[in-house]
């Protein structure tokens, strides 16, 4: 099988559309993961009864089962319980919830990294709980974990390819479909790989730079 540039060029627009879906799905899912992960981390840090245990089990469960299984389960089982969502929305939710279990642990590490004296200073100033979290603890906690969260974001971007199994029309799905109907996999899959690289590599460089800047300003 030799590389056919003409064919490659002809399928590029479709693949780029697929990449755009991939990027949108990742952006939406990382937003879920960042918000939900923070909620889980704070609830577990505060040891809020019941909720804390529920989230603890949630993290254990999510981290202990494959993303692929979670995606299948959500796609094939939820509709039986009357929850009918599009493949894309299902994919975004699965990816977001899956990663929230990991970001929660990252947040927790960041929160625990904040010096005890910061909490004591907040108490000594009579700062109530909310400003203590939003103004004192979280800004410091997040600063130290931005690179880690960034790496999860890149990893999620690549993992989003798994959503092809539940028919989300992201870039790998498009590539596979083209390959299947044209009986040529070389060009579509090569381009899919290159497109992933074209996004993830600059993102990694960006995060490394951000990491350096944060290290200096600290």
């Amino acid at each position: 099988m030799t590389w056919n540039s003409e064919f490659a060029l002809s399928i590029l627009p479709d693949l780029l559309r697929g990449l755009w879906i991939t990027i949108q799905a990742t952006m939406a899912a990382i937003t879920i993961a960042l918000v939900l992960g923070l909620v889980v981390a704070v609830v577990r840090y505060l040891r809020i009864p019941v909720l804390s245990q529920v989230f603890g089990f949630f993290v254990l469960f999510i981290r202990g089962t494959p993303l692929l299984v979670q995606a299948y389960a959500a796609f094939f089982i939820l509709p039986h319980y009357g929850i009918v969502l599009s493949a894309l929305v299902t994919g975004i939710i699965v990816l977001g919830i899956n990663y929230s279990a990991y970001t929660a642990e990252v947040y927790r590490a960041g929160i625990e990294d904040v010096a005890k004296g910061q909490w004591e200073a907040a108490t000594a100033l009579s700062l109530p709980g909310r400003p203590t979290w939003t103004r004192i603890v979280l800004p410091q906690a997040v600063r130290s974990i931005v690179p880690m969260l960034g790496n999860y974001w890149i990893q999620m971007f690549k993992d989003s390819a798994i959503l092809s199994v539940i028919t989300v029309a992201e870039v790998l799905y498009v590539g596979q479909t083209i390959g299947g109907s044209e009986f040529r996999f070389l060009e579509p899959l090569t381009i899919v790989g290159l497109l992933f690289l074209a996004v993830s590599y600059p993102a990694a460089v960006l995060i490394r730079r951000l990491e350096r800047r944060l290290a200096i300003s600290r």
Partner: protein
Amino acid sequence: MISFDDVDKSWGPNHVLKKLNFHVKPAEKVSIIGPSGSGKTTILRILMTLENPDEGIVTVDGDELWNVERGRRIRRETTQMKLTRRKIGMVFQQFNLFPHLSAIQNVMEAPIQVLGMSKNEAHERAKGLLDTVGLGEHLDHKPPKLSGGQQQRVAIARAMAMRPKVMLFDEVTSALDPELVGDVLDVIRDLATSTDMTMLLVTHEMRFAEEISDRVVMFDGGVAVEQGPPQKIFQDPDNERTRRFLKAVLEH
């Protein structure tokens, strides 16, 4: 202003406060001295609600801050505790400034969040206080850019911004390079002479304690072994342990 009645506190086998009875009058400046691990800092931390006593009653300005029996709080009035706590300010050995906020933001934070002040008002008050402690030129510097002595003076300004009736100083010069101690002590001396705040200092600066205190309390093994006017304690202590302690710290 402050009263400890039969206050007990243990850390595992370490009995740091033994049925402590300790009272401070309004506007009184009291220095607490003694060997490390003698429970001095615990007194301040209980007042700041950073530590809870196991037994006893602690009141501040007539209101109960703690009322506990066998570690259980009797009559849980947490709102009362919060309101009483606002009358108290504390300066820590390690400064504990918020490193991501500038000097002036450090001072403005509590007046805005707790007293509901406007940004302008809080800025005004913070600037005034930072001027007083000699940091008028460093309003926008973040703590890591300041020396230890400067950080500690910001911390004093930050505590003062809440206009506390009681100020607690917990070995505030212990973490400083010797040449920076003087500036911080000058600020505290000013506060001691120019305000009617009640001040409680845990300190190893014996000469400073002698100079500014109305009363010095010698702590050892969880009890106040001796207390009195600074001249009496430093020149002519009655207690053998006080004498030995002072001899050890003043000799070097």
